[in-house]
C-alpha cells in the first residue's frame, strides 16, 4: 500500500532529522560562553569541580555526547542544573499538560473561527465579512500577545469579573488565556483559508462541478474546501506544536503552570541540560507533528503520496 510505504519512509526521515537536530544543538550549546554554574563567583574551586563532575561536564565532549544519546534512547533527558536533581523529563511533563490544554483549546477554537471567517471572506471577496476578517487577521498578527493578554485579563477578568484573572484549576481559568492565544490562530487560519479559497474557486474543476449542476454548498464542501484546506493543514502542524509547548507571555500573565518559560529560562540560566532537554522535546514533538501533517496531507491529496514514494 502506497500510504504505508510513504509513512514508513517519512518516519525514517523524522528519526534521522531528530538525531541531527539533537547533535547540532548538543555541540552548539557547548559553544555557549560562560559557565553553566550558578553563583560561580562565590563557589570554592573544589565545589565547582564537584558540580561539573556530577553533571559529567569534565568528560571529553564525545563521551558526554554518547552518554547523552544513550540516555535519550532510554527516554532520559538528563537532570537540570538549575533545579537541583530534578529530572528534565519530569520538568517538561509537569508543565506540558497545562500548556498543551491551552494550546489545543486555542487551536480548536482558532481553527473553527478562522475557517469560517476564511471561507466566507474567500467566497464573498470585498464583502463586509471579508473586510472584518482582514482587520481581525491583521490585528491578530499586529497586536503583541502580551498586550492582548493584559487587556483581556484586565477587562474581562478584573473589570467585568466574567472569568478568573489568573491561576490554574477549573475550565473557567482556561478561558482568558485560550482567547489570548487563539487570536493568532484565527488570524493565520483565516488568512490562509481565504487565499486558498479564492485560488481554488478559480480552478477549472470547480467549473466542472458547477456544470454538473451540483448545488453551491455541495461544491464548496466537496470540491473547494478540501482543496483549500491543504495549506492550512501545513501550517497547523508547527503552529500546534508552538502553542502546545506554551507561550511564555501568556503563561506569565495568567500565572499558568505551563512549560513556556522553560525555553527562556534555560538559556538565561545557561542550564545546558535543560536547553538540551527542551530542544529535544520540542523538536521531537515538532517533527512528529510534521509527520502527522504529511500523512494527513497524503490522505487529503492523493498526488503527494505517489509523487513522494517515487512512482511518478
Amino acid at each position, binding site marked *: 500500500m502506497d500510504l504505508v510505504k510513504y509513512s514508513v519512509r517519512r518516519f525514517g526521515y523524522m528519526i534521522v532529522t531528530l538525531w541531527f537536530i539533537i547533535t547540532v544543538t548538543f555541540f552548539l550549546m557547548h559553544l555557549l560562553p*560562560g559557565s553553566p554554574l550558578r553563583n560561580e563567583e562565590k*563557589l570554592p574551586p573544589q565545589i565547582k569541580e564537584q558540580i561539573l563532575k556530577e553533571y559529567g561536564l569534565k568528560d571529553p565532549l564525545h563521551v558526554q555526547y554518547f552518554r547523552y544519546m544513550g540516555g535519550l534512547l532510554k527516554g532520559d533527558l538528563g537532570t537540570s542544573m538549575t533545579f537541583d*536533581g530534578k529530572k528534565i523529563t519530569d520538568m517538561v511533563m509537569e508543565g506540558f499538560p497545562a500548556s498543551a490544554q491551552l494550546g489545543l483549546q486555542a487551536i480548536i477554537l482558532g481553527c473553527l473561527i478562522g475557517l469560517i471567517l476564511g471561507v466566507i471572506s474567500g467566497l464573498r471577496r470585498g464583502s463586509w465579512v471579508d473586510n472584518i476578517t482582514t482587520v481581525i487577521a491583521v490585528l491578530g498578527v499586529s497586536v503583541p500577545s*502580551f498586550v492582548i493578554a493584559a487587556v483581556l485579563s*484586565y477587562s474581562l477578568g*478584573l473589570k467585568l469579573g466574567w472569568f478568573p484573572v489568573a491561576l*490554574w484549576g477549573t475550565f473557567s481559568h482556561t478561558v482568558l488565556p485560550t482567547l489570548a492565544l487563539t487570536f493568532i490562530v484565527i488570524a493565520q487560519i483565516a488568512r490562509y483559508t481565504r487565499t486558498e479559497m479564492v485560488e481554488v474557486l478559480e480552478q477549472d474543476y470547480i467549473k466542472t462541478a458547477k456544470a454538473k449542476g451540483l448545488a453551491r454548498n455541495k461544491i464548496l464542501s466537496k470540491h473547494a474546501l478540501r482543496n483549500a484546506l491543504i495549506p492550512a493543514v501545513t501550517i497547523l502542524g508547527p503552529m500546534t506544536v508552538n502553542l502546545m509547548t506554551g507561550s511564555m507571555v501568556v503563561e506569565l500573565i495568567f500565572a499558568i503552570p505551563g512549560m513556556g518559560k522553560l525555553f527562556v529560562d534555560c538559556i538565561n540560566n545557561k542550564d545546558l541540560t535543560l536547553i538540551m532537554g527542551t530542544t529535544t522535546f520540542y523538536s521531537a514533538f515538532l517533527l512528529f507533528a510534521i509527520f502527522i501533517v504529511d500523512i494527513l496531507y497524503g490522505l487529503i491529496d492523493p498526488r503527494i503520496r505517489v509523487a513522494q514514494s517515487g512512482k511518478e
Partner: protein
Amino acid sequence: MRKKLALSLGLLLASSSVLAACGGGGGGNTANEKPQDTKTLEWYMGEDPKTLDYALDVDQSMNYLISNSMDGLFRLDADHKPQPAIAEGQPQISSDKKTYTFKLRDAKWSDGKPVTAKDFEFAWKRVVDPKTASQYANIMFFIENAQEINQGKKPADTLGVKAKDDKTLEVKLKNPTPFFLDLVAFATYLPQREDIVKKHGKAYGVTPDKLVYNGPFEISTESKKGKFVLKKNQNYWDKDKVKLEKVNLHSIEDDATAVKLYETGKLAWSGPLSGAFLTKYKNHKDKFVPPYASSWVLIQNFKAKDPNKAKFFGNKKIREAIDLSVDRNTLVDKVLRTGRPSGSWVPKEITVTSGKSIREESKLDPTKPDPAKAKQLLQEGLKEAGLSSAPTLEILVNNIDPNPQIAQYIKEELRKNLGLNTVVKSVPFKQRLELSDRGEFDLVLYGWGPDYNDPMTYMEFWTSDSPNNKGKWSNAEYDKLIEKSYSNTNFEERSKDLMKAEKIWVDDHATVPLYQSDRLYLVKPYVKGVKWHFFNADFDLKEAYIESK
C-alpha cells in the same frame, strides 16, 4: 550570600513587572470580603522553588516554604530576635565565646520520629562536605574547620559540631560570632534526617514527599507546579500555636497579575509592588511596608580593562564628582517611587552591639547633589589623572525592573551634570553576574541584603580579597579593621571598628551609594499574626490566623 536572595527576588520582581499591565481596578468590589474558609490562607509566592533540599541552595520561594515547615535551633520572633525553638532555652556559651552547647527539647518530625542532635550534626556536615556541592556552604564558615572541609583540606568529620547525646549539641566556632544565633535560625542550619537523605539519594528534596518536616507546617504532596500547599503539621511540638490548617502558595511571576488577584480577593498578600503600582497604592488602606534592608550602590571598576578608565576611576576627585552629580531624592521619589536615599552601605535596620540602629550610631547622610562642584572636581581630576577627556563609560545592569530605569536615570544625570557619555548595558541576570565577575564593566549596579543582623554581613563585602568586591577597590586600613573584627571578643570595640571601616569606604568614594530599598505590600486586613522579617525568610506564618468576626 543573602544577596542572592535579594537579587533573585529582583529577578522575579522584574520578570513580573515587565508586564505589569493591568492592576487592580478601582477598589475591587470583592477585595475585602472575608474568605469563607478561615483556616486556609491564599498566599503569594514568586517562582516555583528550584529545589526543596535546603542544604544545596536557598532561593526565595524555597525559603518561604522551608522556613514555615521547619524549625531550627532558634526561630526569629516578631522583633527579628532569635528565640529558642528546637533548642530548649539559651545555649551555654563558653568564656571565649567560641563554644555553644544547645539542649534540645522533645520534638518530632512529621513522620513521628524524634528530632535529635544527630540530625543537626548530620545536616551541617552534609552542607560543608564538598561532595554535596552546596551553593550556600559559606554561611557555615563561622564553624570551626568548615571552610577547610569545604575546600577539601580537612575531612568532613572534623567539623566543629558534635551531638554529645540525642539531646545535646555542641558547636565550636572559628571566631567569636555575636550573631551566631541569627544564623542557626537560617535554612541552611536546619536539621536533616540521615535515613531520609540516604533513602532518596539524588531525589532527596526534589518533591515534597521526599522530605520530612519538623516545623509548623508540612509541604503537602498536593503541591504541584504553580501551587504549593502547606498543611498543619500534627506532629509539631508547638502545634497549639499554629492556627491555620492550610496555606496555598501560588507561583505568580507577573506582579500586575498578583495585584489583580489581590484585588479580586484570590490572594491575601500581594508581593512587592513596582513601578506605577507604587504610585497607585501609595495611600491604599491595605498598604503594608514591612521592615526591609537592602542597599544599592554603583560599583566603579578600579581595574577596568581600559587603562584610561582605570586611571579615571583611580582618581578620588573624579569619584567624588560622580557622587556629587546624582540626585538621590529624585531617584527615589520619581524613578523608584519607593525607598530611601542612601549615603552609606549598611542599612538602618542593622543593629550594633548597643542594640541601636547602626545609622543612629554613625550618621552618614546621603550626598547632596552639587553639579557645579562636581564639574569642577571632574576637570581637576581629569588633569590629575592625565586624561584629556573622560572616556565613554558602560553602565552594567541586569534587565530586571527597575534596574534599567535606574541606569537610564544615572546616565542622564551624568550627561546633564558632568557631560559624561555613558552606555547602558542591560543583560539577563546571570550574564550580569558573569560580566561583573570577570571585571568586564565600568560601572555596575549592585544590591545586597543581609544574611544576619550584624554590620559584618555588609562590611566583609569590600575587603581586598572578597569575591564580592567587583570593582577591586582596596584599602589596607579597611582590610585591617575587618580582619581584626573577625576575632575580636570585645563586641563594643568591634562595632566601632566596623563603623570606622564604613566611614573609610564612604570618604574614599569607593563606590557610589544610591539608595536603600523599601517594599510595599498589599495585605488583607483580616490576616493577623504574620511575622515579617528583613533577613532570614520574609515572613513566618507559624502563628498567623484569619480574623473572623
